[in-house]
C-alpha cells in the first residue's frame, strides 16, 4: 500500500488532508458562531430594561421587576416576561447596587457548591431540584407552602430565610444542609436566582409550574 496507491480510499495522505480540512472547517465555524453567541448572551443594561429592549440575559437590575414565564405563540415555547416594577427586599436597587448583589450571589452559588446537588440551567447534579426558574416556583408563591413555613411576608425574604437555615424548614426526608450562608449572602443568592429566572432559555423547562392538581403516579 505504501509503495503503490491503488485507490484514493487507501491513501494515508488523502485521509490526513481530509482530517485537517474537516477539523479546520468545524473549528472556524465554531469560532464564528461563538462570536455571534457571545454578543447575544452578553448581559443587557439598565437602559435596555427601562426602554423595554429584550435581552437573552438581562441586566442585574431585572431584580426590580416582576418576572413571569409565558407561552409565546410566535416562538412556540415559553419565554420569560419582564413586567412592572416591584420592590426587592423592600426597595428599588440602583444599577451599581444590583450588580454588586448579583456578584455576591453568583460567587456564593459557586463557593457553596450549589451545582453539586442542584442543576442550574439544567447542568449540575440531580440530587435536588433544578434552580433555573426557582424564583417563579409555585412553592414560593403567596399561596405556596414555603411562605407560611418561614413566616415571612415576601417571597425574597422567605427564600433568604430558608437558605440561611434550610434544615430548620425540612420539606422532605432529603434536606438541604446548613452551609453557613450569611444574611447578605442569602440576599445575593436570591438576586442570583431571580436574575437566572429572567434568562431566555428557549422554553426550558417546558410547562414550568403549569400543572394543576397532581399526578396519580405516586
Amino acid at each position, binding site marked *: *500500500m*505504501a509503495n503503490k496507491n491503488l485507490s484514493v480510499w*487507501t491513501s*494515508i495522505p488523502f*485521509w*490526513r488532508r*481530509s*482530517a485537517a480540512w*474537516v477539523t479546520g472547517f*468545524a*473549528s472556524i465555524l*465554531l469560532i464564528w458562531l461563538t462570536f*455571534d*453567541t457571545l454578543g*447575544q*448572551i*452578553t448581559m443587557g443594561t439598565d437602559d435596555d430594561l427601562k426602554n423595554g429592549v429584550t435581552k*437573552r*440575559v438581562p441586566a*442585574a437590575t431585572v431584580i426590580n421587576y416582576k418576572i413571569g414565564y409565558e407561552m409565546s405563540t410566535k416562538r412556540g415555547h415559553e419565554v420569560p416576561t419582564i413586567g412592572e416594577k416591584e420592590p426587592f427586599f423592600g426597595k428599588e436597587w440602583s444599577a451599581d447596587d444590583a450588580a454588586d448583589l448579583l456578584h*455576591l*450571589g*453568583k*460567587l*456564593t*452559588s*459557586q*463557593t*457553596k*457548591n450549589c451545582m*453539586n*446537588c442542584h442543576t442550574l*440551567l*439544567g*447542568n*449540575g*447534579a*440531580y*440530587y435536588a*431540584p433544578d434552580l433555573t*426558574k426557582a424564583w417563579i416556583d409555585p*412553592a414560593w408563591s403567596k399561596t405556596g407552602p414555603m411562605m407560611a413555613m418561614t413566616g415571612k411576608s415576601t417571597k425574597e425574604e422567605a427564600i433568604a430565610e430558608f437558605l440561611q437555615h434550610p*434544615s430548620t424548614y425540612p420539606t*422532605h426526608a432529603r*434536606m438541604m*444542609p446548613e452551609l453557613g450562608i450569611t444574611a447578605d*449572602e442569602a440576599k*445575593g443568592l436570591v438576586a442570583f436566582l431571580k*436574575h437566572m429566572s429572567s*434568562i431566555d*432559555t*428557549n422554553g426550558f*423547562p*417546558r410547562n*414550568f*409550574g403549569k*400543572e394543576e392538581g*397532581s*399526578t396519580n*403516579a405516586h
Partner: protein
Amino acid sequence: MLTSIKENHLTNKGQELGMMYFRVAIILFGAQLVMGLIAAIQFLAPGFLFELFDFSVARMVHINALVVWMLYAMIGATYMMLTDETGHEGVAIGLGKLGFWLLTAAVTVVVLVYIIVQVGPGTEASLWLIHEGREYIEAPRWADIGIVVVVLIFYFNVFATYMKGEKTGIMTVMVANLLALAGLYMAGMFYTDNISMDQFWWWWVIHLWVEATWEVFVGTLAAYALIKIIGAKREIVEMWLWIEVLMLFGSGILGMGHHYFWIGTPEYWWEIGALFSALEPVPLIAMFVHVLYDWGKEQGIAEGRGETASVITNGPAMAWIVTNAFGNFLGAGIWGFFHTLPQVNIYTHGTQFTAAHGHLSFFGAYATILIGMMYYGLQRAYGVQRMKLTFKSKMGIFLTTFGVMGMTIALTIAGYEQVIVERGEMGATWNAFFVAQNLPWYVQAQMWRAIMGVVTLLGFIYLAWDLLTIGKVSKEAEA
C-alpha cells in the same frame, strides 16, 4: 505494580514515569468508587452523613477523582508510548518526574481541602483556595495554575521528543491533539457573574474534552496498542486513525451545540447541535469495527501461516481494549443519542438520563482503554513475553463492566420515571421533583444502582489486586 519500576525491565525512563502516573491513577479510581457509593447511599438514606459529609461533597470528590485519574492515566500512557513511537529517549524525563511530584502533592492538598473545608464564604478568596464550585473543574484557582505549569512540562517533553525523533502518524495526531486538550483547560479558568456566559465557556472545556480531544486520544492509544498487542500493520491503523480524527472532530466540535439548547444561547444551536451530535456515534461504530476487524485479520493471517497460537500477546490489555470498543459505542454513542435531539432533550435535560449516559460513557470510552494501557505497561515493566488473563483479571473486568452496565440501566429507568412524571406530567417544579423522586419505581431503581455500585467496587478490588500481582505471576510462569 508496586515493584514494576524496581524490576527494571523497562527500556527507557519515560516508561518508568508512565508507571508512576498509573499507580496514582488506580488509587484515585478507587477513591472515585468509594465516593460514588456514599452518594448512592445518600439517595436512599438521606440522613447518611448529613451535615457531616453531604452529597455535594461526596459528588464533588466522585467526579473530580474521575477526571484526575483519567488525566493521570492519559499522561502515563503518553509517556509509555513516547520512546517507542519516536525512537528517541524522552528529552526531559527528570523534569517530568518533578512535575509528577508537584501534581501529586497538589492533588492531595486539593482533595484534603474538599473533604475537610468543604465550603467557603462567598468571596473571591474561596475560589482561589477552596474550590470553584463548577462541576468537573472545581479545582481552586491556585491548583489551576499549578496544573497548567505541570501540563506545560509534560507537553514540552512530548513535543520536544517528537521534534527530535521519528514523526509517526500516531505521534503527529498525539502532539496536535494534546495541544488542543491542554489549551482548552484555560477556557474554564475565569469568573463571571453571567451564568449563561459561565456555562458557555465551561462547555468548551467539558465537551471539547470528552466528546472531541479525549476521543481522539483514545483513537491514538488504540492504534498504538493494536500494533503492540496483536501486531497490527502500522499503515492500516494509521489510516484508520486519520479517518477517526476526521469523523470525531467533524462531528464532535460542532456537536457542542447540544449543550447550548437551554442555557440562554440562541435557537440556531438546536439545528447545529442536533445534526452534528447525531453524527457523533458514527466514528464510534468505525472504531468498534476497526478493533474487531484488525484482530480477526491478524489472527487469520497467522492461521494462514499455520500458526495455532493467538496473536494476542497481552490478554488482559486486549480484553479491556475490546470492552472499550464496545463500551465507547454503547455508552457514548447509543446512550448519548438517546437524549441528544432538542425535541427529547427539553424533557430529559438535567435528569437521571444524563447520569446514566455519564456512567456508561466515562467507563466505556475512557476507563476501559486506560486500564488496558496499565496492563500493557505492566507487561513491559516485568519483561513478560505473553501476558495471560488470570482469574483475578477475569473477575475484575467482568464485575466492573457488569456493575457499570447495571448502574446505567438502573439510572436509565430512574431517568425515565423522572422525565415522565416530573417533566411531562408535573411541569418541573420543586414539588414535581420530589414527587418523582419518591415514586416507588424510582426508589427501586436507585436501590439497584447502589447494589450495582457495590458490584463495581468488588470488580475494582479484583482489578487492583490483579494489577498488583499479575506482573510477577506472569514473569514467574514464563521463567
